[in-house]
C-alpha cells in the first residue's frame, strides 16, 4: 500500500523532468484529424525534428467533429492553445475573413507555390492570399466491381450517366447474395449525405441559393434529383442505407456488398489494399456520373494546415507547415511508407512522378477530377457562394445537417420527397433570415 502510494509521485517527477528538458526548444502544438494521411504525418515526427533540431512537435489527434468544435472554440476566443491547425476547405475562407489565420504570402521559393494545384490553392485563399497550405485533397468518383459487370455483360462508359447507373443498379441488385446494386451515403449530416446529394443536385442543374441568397430547395432540379436518389438508393441500396456514411459504405464495399459506390477518391487506397479489402482484384473506377450538366457533378475537399493568429510560435509553425505540405515530404512518405500512401491531390509534381502513377492506377482519375472541380463555378445557374458540395457560409453546417435529416426521412419512406423538401426549404429560410441574409 505504501509503495503504491509513492509510485504516482515518482512517475510524476519523471514526467516533470522530461517536460523541463524539452523546454529548451520551441514546442509547437499541432492539432490534426485522425485520418490515415495525418497519422502518417505524425509518425514522421522524428524526421522533422531531426531536420529542425530547435523545434519539437506536440500532437493533438482527434476525430473530425470533435476537432472542429475544439479548434473553433479556441480560435474564436483567442485561446492560443494551438500553433498549427488542420482545417478543411470549408473553414479556411471563413476563418481567413475574420483574421483568425496568419496570411501565408511570403513563402520561400523552394516551397514552389506554383506546383500546387490551382483549384485546391484557390479554395484556401482569400483575395489571392493563401491562408492555409493543402495537405491532401480529394474529389468524388465511382467505384464498381468489374467481376459483376463482366458477368452481367455490362460495359462501363467513359463518362457514365445517372440513368445508366440506375439501369445497372437494377440489373446487378442481388446478383450475388448480399450484393446491393449501389451504395450511397444516407446518414444525415452536412459532411455526410449532403456532400453527395449536393453533387447530384448540381448535375441535375440545381443550386442551394439564388444570387439573392434565397434557398431553392423546392425547385424543379432538387425535386427531380431527390426523387431519383430516393428511388435509386431505396430500391437498389443496401439495407439500412439511411444510417450509412462514408465509413459504413467503405466497409460494405470492401466486403463485396456493393456493385457500385460513388464516394470520395480517398477510399481508393483502402480498396486497392488487399489486406483491407476483399474486392481489391476486381476493383474498377469511373468518373462520378452526370445527369443534365457535368458542372459540380463531383466534389472537392481539401484538408489543409494553417497557423492561427493567436499562436505564439508562428515562425516554428510556418517551418512545420511548409515542411509537411512540401514536395520533399511527399517523397519522404513515398519512400518510407509506400507510394500509395502519399497524400494525394495537392501538387502537380506528385502526378508527374512515375513511381506514384505506377503504384496508384487511379491517380489520373483523381487528378482530373480535382482539376475539373471548380468551387467558384459549380452550378448550372450562377450562385453567390463558393464550394461544390458545400456553401462557404457559417450557417451551412446547421442548414446542411437539417436538410440532410429531411432527405433521410424521405429515403426511409417516412415522408414523401415533396414533404421533405418543403420542410427543408422552410427550415433553411428560417436560418437564413435569422442570419440576416434576407428578410
Amino acid at each position, binding site marked *: 500500500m505504501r509503495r503504491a502510494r509513492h509510485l504516482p509521485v515518482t512517475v510524476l517527477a519523471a514526467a516533470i523532468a522530461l517536460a523541463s528538458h524539452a523546454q529548451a526548444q520551441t514546442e509547437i502544438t499541432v492539432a490534426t484529424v485522425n485520418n490515415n494521411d495525418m497519422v502518417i504525418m505524425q509518425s514522421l515526427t522524428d524526421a522533422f525534428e531531426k531536420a529542425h533540431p530547435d523545434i519539437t512537435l506536440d500532437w493533438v489527434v482527434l476525430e473530425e467533429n470533435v476537432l472542429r468544435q475544439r479548434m473553433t472554440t479556441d480560435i474564436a476566443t483567442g485561446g492560443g492553445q494551438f500553433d498549427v491547425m488542420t482545417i478543411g476547405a470549408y473553414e479556411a475562407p471563413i476563418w481567413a475573413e475574420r483574421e483568425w489565420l496568419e496570411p501565408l504570402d511570403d513563402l520561400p521559393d523552394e516551397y514552389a507555390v506554383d506546383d500546387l494545384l490551382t483549384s485546391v490553392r484557390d479554395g484556401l485563399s482569400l483575395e489571392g492570399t493563401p491562408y492555409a497550405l493543402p495537405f491532401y485533397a480529394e474529389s468524388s468518383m465511382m467505384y464498381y466491381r468489374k467481376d459483376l459487370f463482366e458477368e452481367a455483360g455490362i460495359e462501363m462508359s467513359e463518362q457514365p450517366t445517372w440513368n445508366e447507373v440506375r439501369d445497372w443498379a437494377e440489373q446487378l441488385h442481388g446478383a450475388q447474395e448480399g450484393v446491393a446494386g449501389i451504395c450511397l451515403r444516407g446518414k*444525415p449530416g452536412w459532411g455526410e449525405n449532403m456532400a453527395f446529394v449536393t453533387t447530384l443536385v448540381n448535375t441535375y442543374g440545381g443550386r442551394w441559393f439564388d444570387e439573392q441568397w434565397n434557398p431553392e430547395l423546392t425547385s424543379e432540379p432538387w425535386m427531380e434529383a431527390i426523387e431519383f436518389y430516393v428511388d435509386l438508393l431505396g430500391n437498389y441500396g443496401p439495407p439500412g442505407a439511411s444510417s450509412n456514411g462514408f465509413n459504413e459504405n467503405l466497409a460494405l464495399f470492401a466486403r463485396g456488398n456493393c456493385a457500385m459506390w460513388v464516394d470520395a477518391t480517398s477510399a481508393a487506397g483502402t480498396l486497392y489494399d488487399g489486406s483491407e479489402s476483399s474486392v481489391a482484384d476486381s476493383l474498377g473506377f469511373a468518373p462520378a456520373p452526370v445527369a443534365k450538366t457535368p458542372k459540380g457533378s463531383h466534389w472537392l475537399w481539401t484538408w489543409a494546415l494553417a497557423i492561427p493568429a493567436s499562436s505564439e510560435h508562428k515562425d516554428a509553425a510556418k517551418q512545420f507547415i511548409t515542411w509537411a505540405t512540401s514536395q520533399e515530404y511527399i517523397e519522404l512518405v513515398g519512400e518510407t511508407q509506400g507510394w500509395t500512401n502519399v497524400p494525394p491531390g495537392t501538387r502537380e509534381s506528385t502526378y508527374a512522378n512515375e513511381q506514384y502513377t505506377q503504384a496508384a492506377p487511379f491517380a489520373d482519375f483523381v487528378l482530373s477530377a480535382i482539376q475539373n472541380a471548380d468551387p467558384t463555378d459549380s452550378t448550372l445557374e450562377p450562385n453567390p457562394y463558393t464550394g461544390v458540395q458545400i456553401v462557404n457560409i457559417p450557417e451551412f453546417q446547421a442548414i446542411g445537417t437539417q436538410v440532410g435529416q429531411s432527405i433521410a426521412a424521405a429515403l*426511409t419512406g417516412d415522408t414523401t420527397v415533396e414533404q421533405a423538401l418543403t420542410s427543408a426549404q*422552410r427550415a433553411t429560410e428560417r436560418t437564413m433570415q435569422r442570419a440576416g441574409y434576407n428578410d
Partner: protein
Amino acid sequence: MTRTRASGRTVGGLRTLSLQAPAVTLLLLWMVVPLGMTIWFSFQYYNLLMPGMSGFAGAENYEYLLTDPALWKAMGNTLLLVGWVLAITVGGGILLAVLFQQEFAGRGIARVLAISPFFVMPTVSALVWKNMMMHPSNGVLAWLANTLGLPAMDWFSTLPLTSIVIIVAWQWLPFALLILLTAMQSLDEDQVEAARMDGAGPIAIFFFITLPHLKRAISVVIMIEMIFLLTIFAEIFVTTSGGPGLATTNLAYLIYMRALLDFDVGIASAGGVMAIILANIVAIFLVRMVARNLEE
C-alpha cells in the same frame, strides 16, 4: 455535553450550516458564475463565427428556438427516451439486483461483468452497437436472426428511437444495478428471516420487504438517470444523427444543431436556459414522488 433533543435543534442548525458550507458555496459559485453568464449571453447577439455581431437581442434568441417547428417533436422524443430507459433500467435493475444478491459460484466476477457496460464511453458503445450488433448485414443480431431463419432487422431505419433506447438502456442498467445492489446490503436480514418463519414466500418477501426497502434507492436512480438521460447526445450523434427526419432528434440534439453547429452562443445559451427550465419542470413532478420517500 447536554445535547438533548430540545437544544439539539439549534446546535444542529449551526452545525448543519458549517458542515454544508463547502459544498453549498462551491455549487453556488458553479451555479452563479456560468449560469449568470449563460443567462446574460442568452439575451445577446453573440456568434463565435461573427465577431462583429453584438448587442442586446431581447427575447429574440428564445423566440427563435420556441418557434422552431421541430421543438415539440424533439420534446416528445426526449420524454419518450427518458421514460422508456427509466422503465427498463429500474425494472431490470431491481430484478438483476435480486439475482446478484443470491450466493452463487463466481458471483463477484458475474457482477462486474454485468456492471461493465457502464465503463464504456458512450461514443464507443454507440459505435459497437451500430456497427457490430445492430448492423443489418454484418451485425451479430442480423446473424442471429438469419441463423434462426428470420429476416434481418434494419434497426436504425425501421425502429430508430427504439434502437437508441436499447443502447442507452444497456448503458444505464448497470448503474441501476450498482445502486440497488448496494442498497440491498442494508436490508435487515433478521426481518427477512422473521417473515420467512411466518411463512412468507419469496415473492411476498420481495413485494413487502425488499421493494419498500429499496424505495429510496430507486428514487435516487430515477433522479440521477433522469439528469443524464435528458441530455443524451453522443449515442444519437454517432448512430442516426437525429434522423431519419426528426425520429431521433431530442432536445440536446436540436440545440446542438441549431446552436453549436454554427457556434451561435446566444442561441446555445437560450437553449441551455430552456433546458434547465424544462428539466426543472420534469423534476418537480418526480420530486413530488421522490420527496415523500426522502421525508421518512
